[in-house]
């Protein structure tokens, strides 16, 4: 009898989507869903039309407005960003012409692409989902392959319902044991990237596993998978379990009745075989992770919040030393200085990384009965209309507003230049987002990535604080 070849979760999904293996070792891979946003999707749809290609399966194609749209209350098509309105109107017209389902600005289920793709159960376990956005890997938390692509590949995806790709190598990252108090999924992923660098998973799809992951709530799993791209992974994925099935059941696009039963039975088989071989394995002891924050301009520039900015001689080579020097200069920091206690002028909670209900609850529990320090501009942007409504039903909006936070409409917001807004020059900002790149949140703005709780605690203190000290207050 032929021996069955052991396969990984990623293998199972990828292999079952191969339409055709091609002579160069690549494959034409079937896409279950394509999701667009107005910044990259508008160009893709326009360009597709100019080339006289139709969207192959509009029922499997969805779109939202999150990247360009304003998040100020009372917003419309106009944005502070020059030319922004064109993106929004082009996206609306092109989506309608192509018969895509569009979650437009005032749609009751509007929001950031990767949030609504989950909330609507557009993404299901075992699916391959493409989106012209690097954070599509977020959806790996549902046990799907989230495939981030560029605009040209998005045109290919829309026109053919496939992508051509070579199966990446595979890595498993096991987080084992309990997380210490005050430590979140955001700290886990920053810890991982700091240790293995921002290109640590280049060429690999990463499966997150281990006892910590098994006990991790779904919203935290989204945060973890979201930043797989910051680790240079092809994508991040977690085996779907009861937590995922309970979340998806009865949602808008989820299968119903008998079809659900069939689907769930199939999904229960979606896990790596116990003897599956990975090209690389990393094990992290979760108890050793501290609340983590970035000091520099790459997500790998991360340290425990009670640690010190590294010295230049800690760089592994001259290019990294050059990058560290530029980062220190940009951030206005000196090697060896503590990060705790740095005064801040901005605090932002939002983005596809950390803008879900549990993120807002964590921040609100710290903000309750406190005020943001004078001189700190604090903004909260819920990731979707559903999150916003749920938060308002719990009265979280009132806690944010009473603390002195702005309470925004859903969208990408100040994660970058969405709506045309930025933080100020040389302002230091603590942010629940995913990228601390130079200029990301404003010209010369100094961004420190951290968990929503750390953002809230620091906003009150007016300086970067260790959330563990606040929790005991």
């Amino acid at each position, binding site marked *: 009898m032929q021996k069955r070849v052991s396969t990984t979760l990623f293998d199972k999904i990828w292999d079952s989507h191969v*339409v*055709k293996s*091609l002579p*160069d070792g*690549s494959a*034409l891979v*079937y896409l*279950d869903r394509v999701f667009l946003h107005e910044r*990259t999707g508008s*160009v893709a749809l*326009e360009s597709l039309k100019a*080339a006289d*290609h139709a969207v192959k399966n509009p029922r*499997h194609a969805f779109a939202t407005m999150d990247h360009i749209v304003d998040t100020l209350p009372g917003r419309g098509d106009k944005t502070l*960003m020059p*030319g922004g309105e*064109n993106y929004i109107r082009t996206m609306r017209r092109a989506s309608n012409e192509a018969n895509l389902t569009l979650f437009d600005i005032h749609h009751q289920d509007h929001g950031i692409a990767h949030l609504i793709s989950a909330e609507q159960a557009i993404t299901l376990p*075992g*699916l391959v989902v493409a989106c*012209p*956005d*690097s954070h599509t890997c977020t959806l790996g938390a549902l046990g799907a392959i989230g495939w*981030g*692509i*560029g*605009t*040209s*590949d998005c045109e*290919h995806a829309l*026109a*053919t*319902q*496939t992508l*051509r790709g070579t199966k990446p190598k595979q890595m498993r990252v096991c987080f084992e044991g309990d997380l210490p108090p005050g430590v979140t999924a955001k700290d886990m992923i920053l810890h991982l990237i700091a240790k293995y660098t*921002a*290109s640590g998973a*280049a060429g690999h799809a990463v499966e997150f596993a281990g006892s910590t992951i098994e006990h991790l709530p779904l919203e935290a799993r989204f945060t973890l998978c979201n930043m797989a*791209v910051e680790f*240079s992974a*092809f994508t991040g994925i977690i085996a779907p379990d009861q937590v995922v099935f309970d979340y998806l059941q009865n949602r808008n*696009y989820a*299968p119903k009745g008998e079809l*659900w039963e069939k689907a769930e039975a*199939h999904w229960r088989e979606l896990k790596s075989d116990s003897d599956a071989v990975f090209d690389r394995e990393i094990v992290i002891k979760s108890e050793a992770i501290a609340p983590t924050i970035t000091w520099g301009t*790459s997500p*790998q520039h991360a340290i425990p919040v009670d640690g010190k900015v590294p010295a230049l001689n800690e760089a592994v*080579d001259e*290019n*990294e030393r*050059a*990058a560290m020097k*530029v980062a220190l200069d940009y951030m206005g920091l000196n090697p060896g200085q503590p990060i705790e206690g740095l005064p801040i002028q901005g605090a932002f909670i939002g983005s596809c990384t950390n803008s879900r209900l549990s993120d807002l609850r964590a921040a609100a529990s710290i903000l309750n009965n406190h005020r943001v320090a004078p001189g700190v501009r604090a903004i909260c942007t819920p990731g979707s209309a559903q999150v916003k409504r749920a938060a308002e039903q719990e009265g979280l909006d009132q806690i944010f507003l009473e603390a002195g936070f702005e309470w925004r409409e859903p969208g990408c917001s100040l994660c970058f*230049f*969405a709506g045309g807004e*930025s933080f100020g*020059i040389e302002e230091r900002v603590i942010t629940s987002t995913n990228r601390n*790149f*130079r*200029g990301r949140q404003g*010209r010369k703005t100094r961004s420190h990535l951290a968990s929503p709780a750390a953002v809230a605690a620091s906003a009150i203190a007016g300086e970067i604080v260790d959330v563990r000290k606040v929790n005991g207050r």
Partner: protein
Amino acid sequence: MKPFEQHIGVCADIPINNVDTDQIIPSREMNRVSKQGLGEGLFAGWRYLYEGTEKVGENSEFVLNKPAFANTSILLSAQNFGCGSSREHAVWALRDFGIRVIIAESFGRIFKNNCARNGILAIPLAPESIRHLREQTQHDPQTCLLSVDLAQLTITTPDGNPLSFDMPTFDREMLLKGLDYIDYTLQFESDIESFIKEDSNSRPWAHL
């Protein structure tokens, strides 16, 4: 797409790791629903001087603004060039500016694909090879040109020694012939159709 065969040009060095696509083109420079005319925004945060957020002139310190690097069409860099955001605007800006080849230790995955789709060669090379290219060109960039041959898969330095590089066979073919990716895939349309038919039977819940 224009076929790519051989390119000879001036080469400029950006020797730091993790040059992300927010540096290549900041969000605020992506001001049109078009693939054209984005060259002005290339490396905007580095290339221009600002008062507040207003551009007030060119930053003479930035490599691409130095007279010695006029007409640069080849970039050298380090690890993970083009990481971060998937924005293809980064590649359109590079193309519009006149960049045809980027040589680095490694590239962001999506960025590298975007390059291939737009006729730009993204060539990964070992650090010591990049160091060699740097030594061969950077002291006199207008005279010491690099010659990149996609058909032969070689980069020739001013000392006449060719270095070989790898490129996925398919991307190379597409670039050499200037073929359209979508048209190429559509020849397999009947395979796609029969896959969808079978898959709707085996995974009906996945089909809306």
